[in-house]
């Protein structure tokens, strides 16, 4: 246990013991039974020493107690101070009265009771003073610099030693005693100047503090008047220095309470302004915090409105909100819709409703007088950014000259804060919306991906490899396969003009049309007519698309029906890229040059005239390369197109490979050609290689 802890532990018993000693010593000086019992009058120094011990231990004990000030709760601390010591003062008065009544009822010469009560009151008073003193201390040291804190310790030591010396009846000779007392008093005044805590009180709290300080002074006065009253009582046996000590301590305690009271009182008239500024700062803070929380627009306007009304202390107010849909009245305060509309109409007549407007003498305006409203001052604060108007705030006060420059500037700050936060909110909503669209595009992309056939047809007669890539999330290219009865395979490839979601819709539509039209027709007369030939398919597809494709949109497509039982195929090209073909018999690569109009260009029956079927008997080893324009129109850094010629050359170099290898080689060449260039269009590439192996017939 450290010395401090040990000291703390013995202080309380020491104060009790010294008080008992003081009591006994006082009693020994009374000429009564007790005195006789105690062995006659004890010397005066015992009394004084006991009192010195008692006072010192109580003060040091109070000093070591926990800080009475909790946070910024000054008023709470004073309330506790009034309650505790106030009760002590009441007890003091009560005891004194009891003694008087007893003295009156049972007159006696025995001064024992009087002395006991005097000693009790003295104890109570010392406790009171110690308590008060240390409460003031926490006020003086509130937010004080370390210098002030050191000075306060010195003040305590000096004051304590001075008082205790006084108690020991040692008075320095004149004029040294005056000098000592004078300089101590000056020091006290200097320290009492530290009343920073007053600034932290609201107007109401200041009033409360004033009343509490008066109450404390009053309870002090109760004690003082008691001691002054009995000072000349003949029954008093206490030595004079004891009294002088008490009065001197009272002086310092009361001094600080009085200073605090004065400072608080002088602060009262400015409390309102002070509080208003404080409220303005708090409102600004609240508004600023809203931005970070990113709440809804309505909440931000609500916050602006409440803060504005509170800050400028308006008697009536409303807010107008503007958006694409029009102007509407938002929140209002102590004003009816008719009244606000009347004021607005009047301002509108003078074209004042969209600008910052302050009128501090409404009664002077004849237009306003006619409205017969009880208001003298008006502020209109528009809410606007460089880009658009968000509305306006209207504030009214009954008094003339009700608004000042500060009101106007704080409202300006509020307005710009609000507009800023609204714009932030909007930006956030836009980015959220973008994010949502992105998400949906991702889903669309997944859906579209599921439309692309994953399992390529496999047969010993041919070998197929495919590649498809979209420039955007969703694309306009498509291809599909369908097995038809009689060892036939239908292959569809195509490209919807335009890109993005619209194109993607038409892709899905084409796929639907493909599967719907390539159904077996049970009414067909011959086997050949059971499925539409490619040209027939194109006419029907053109008809189906005519009504739903937008005017400037069109679709290119090629449909191939390969009959691998008979070793031939038939195809029709509706404006789609030419088919590149390797003829193994002739050992030659060429494009099938056929005419054919894109779908959706002519939307009537005459379309049939523009589409032809092309028949071809293939040979084993033949290679068919089917693609979309994204392949041949891919560009290099010099903005040249990949072109049909380059594709032609690639097939000449690779025709002997597998379909998959041919595809890989073409894509590699394409990749090298357009290296570093963005992909402008969707790319689709199908390679079909006809094979000689036909296990069924080889045997």
């Amino acid at each position: 246990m450290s010395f401090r802890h040990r000291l703390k532990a013995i202080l309380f018993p020491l104060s009790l013991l010294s008080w008992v000693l003081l009591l006994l010593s006082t009693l020994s000086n009374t000429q009564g039974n007790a005195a006789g019992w105690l062995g006659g009058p004890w010397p005066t120094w015992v009394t004084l020493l006991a009192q010195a011990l008692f006072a010192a231990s109580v003060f040091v004990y109070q000093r070591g107690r926990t800080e009475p000030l909790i946070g910024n709760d000054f008023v709470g601390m004073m309330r506790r101070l009034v309650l505790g010591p106030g009760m002590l003062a009441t007890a003091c008065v009560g005891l004194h009265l009891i003694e008087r009544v007893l003295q009156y009822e049972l007159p006696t010469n025995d001064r024992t009771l009087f002395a006991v009560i005097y000693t009790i009151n003295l104890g109570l008073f010392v406790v009171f003073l110690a308590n008060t003193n240390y409460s003031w201390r926490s006020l003086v040291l509130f937010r004080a610099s370390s210098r002030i804190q050191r000075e306060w310790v010195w003040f305590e030591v000096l004051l304590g030693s001075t008082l205790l010396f006084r108690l020991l009846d040692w008075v320095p000779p004149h004029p040294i005693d005056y000098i000592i007392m004078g300089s101590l008093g000056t020091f006290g005044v200097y320290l009492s100047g530290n009343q920073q805590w007053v600034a932290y009180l609201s107007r109401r709290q200041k009033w409360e503090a004033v009343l509490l300080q008066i109450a404390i002074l009053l309870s002090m006065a109760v004690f003082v008047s008691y001691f002054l009253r009995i000072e000349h009582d003949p029954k008093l046996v206490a030595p004079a220095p004891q009294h002088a000590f008490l009065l001197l301590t009272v002086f310092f305690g009361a001094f600080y309470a009085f200073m605090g009271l004065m400072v608080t009182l002088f602060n009262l008239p400015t409390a309102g302004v002070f509080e208003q500024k404080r409220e303005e700062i708090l409102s600004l803070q609240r508004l600023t915090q809203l931005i970070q929380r990113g709440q809804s627009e309505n909440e931000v306007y609500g916050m602006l409105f409440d803060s504005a009304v509170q800050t400028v202390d308006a008697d009536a107010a409303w807010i107008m909100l503007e958006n694409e849909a029009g102007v509407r009245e938002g929140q209002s305060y102590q004003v009816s819709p008719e009244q606000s509309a009347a004021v607005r109409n009047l301002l509108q007549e003078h074209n004042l409703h969209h600008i910052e407007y302050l009128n501090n003498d409404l009664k002077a305006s004849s237009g306003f007088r006619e409205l017969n409203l009880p208001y003298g001052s008006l502020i209109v604060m528009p809410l606007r950014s460089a880009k658009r108007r968000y509305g306006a705030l209207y504030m009214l006060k009954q008094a003339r000259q009700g608004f000042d420059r500060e009101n106007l500037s704080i409202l300006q700050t509020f307005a710009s804060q609000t507009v800023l936060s609204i714009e932030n909110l909007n930006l956030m909503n836009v980015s959220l919306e973008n994010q949502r669209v992105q998400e949906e595009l991702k889903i669309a992309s997944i859906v579209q991906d599921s439309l692309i056939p994953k399992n390529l047809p496999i047969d010993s007669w041919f070998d197929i490899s495919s590649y498809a890539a979209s420039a955007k999330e969703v694309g306009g290219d498509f291809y599909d396969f369908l097995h038809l009865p009689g060892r036939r395979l239908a292959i569809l490839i195509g490209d919807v003009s335009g890109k993005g979601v619209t194109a993607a819709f038409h892709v899905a539509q084409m796929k639907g049309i493909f599967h719907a039209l390539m159904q077996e027709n049970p009414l067909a007369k011959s086997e050949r007519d059971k499925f539409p030939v490619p040209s027939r398919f194109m006419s029907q597809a053109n008809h189906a698309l005519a009504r739903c494709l937008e005017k400037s949109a069109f679709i290119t497509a090629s449909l191939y029906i390969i009959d691998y039982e008979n070793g031939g195929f038939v195809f029709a090209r509706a404006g789609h890229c030419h088919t590149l073909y390797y003829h193994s018999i002739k050992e030659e690569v060429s494009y099938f040059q056929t005419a054919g109009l894109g779908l959706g260009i002519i939307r009537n029956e005459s379309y049939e005239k523009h589409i032809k079927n092309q028949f071809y008997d293939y040979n084993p080893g033949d290679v068919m390369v089917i693609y979309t324009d994204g392949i041949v129109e891919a560009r290099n850094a010099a903005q040249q197109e990949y072109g049909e010629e380059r594709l032609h050359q690639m097939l000449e170099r690779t025709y002997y490979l597998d379909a998959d290898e041919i595809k890989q080689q073409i894509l590699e060449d394409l990749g090298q050609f357009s290296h570093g260039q963005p992909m402008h269009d969707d790319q689709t590439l199908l390679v079909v290689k006809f094979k000689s192996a036909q296990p069924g017939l080889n045997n």
Partner: protein
Amino acid sequence: MKITQHASANTLTLTLDGELDASSSVLLDAELAKPETLKFEKVLIDCQRLNYISSAGLGVFISHLQQFQDAGVKLVFFNMQDKVHNVFEILGLDALMTIVPSEAEATAF
């Protein structure tokens, strides 16, 4: 893309300069959609400096084709570069639209 126009008594000549892509086709569409365009007997499109035509550009001509036919306005393309002509041809538009080699032939048409 730059579109310049020259109007004589009964002929409107539009000269296309640059690439006709998705964004520039909007300009062309605005030109062709003007009501006064349909008052001419002939609309000639000079394609000498047309380097590239996208599907959106083709879409503009396609969307106005029917209107021109209904109003009896002849739409004639001339001086077309090979690669642009190839695009028209692949799509089958050469069968629907009049494409001639020179301005003289276009005027005579």
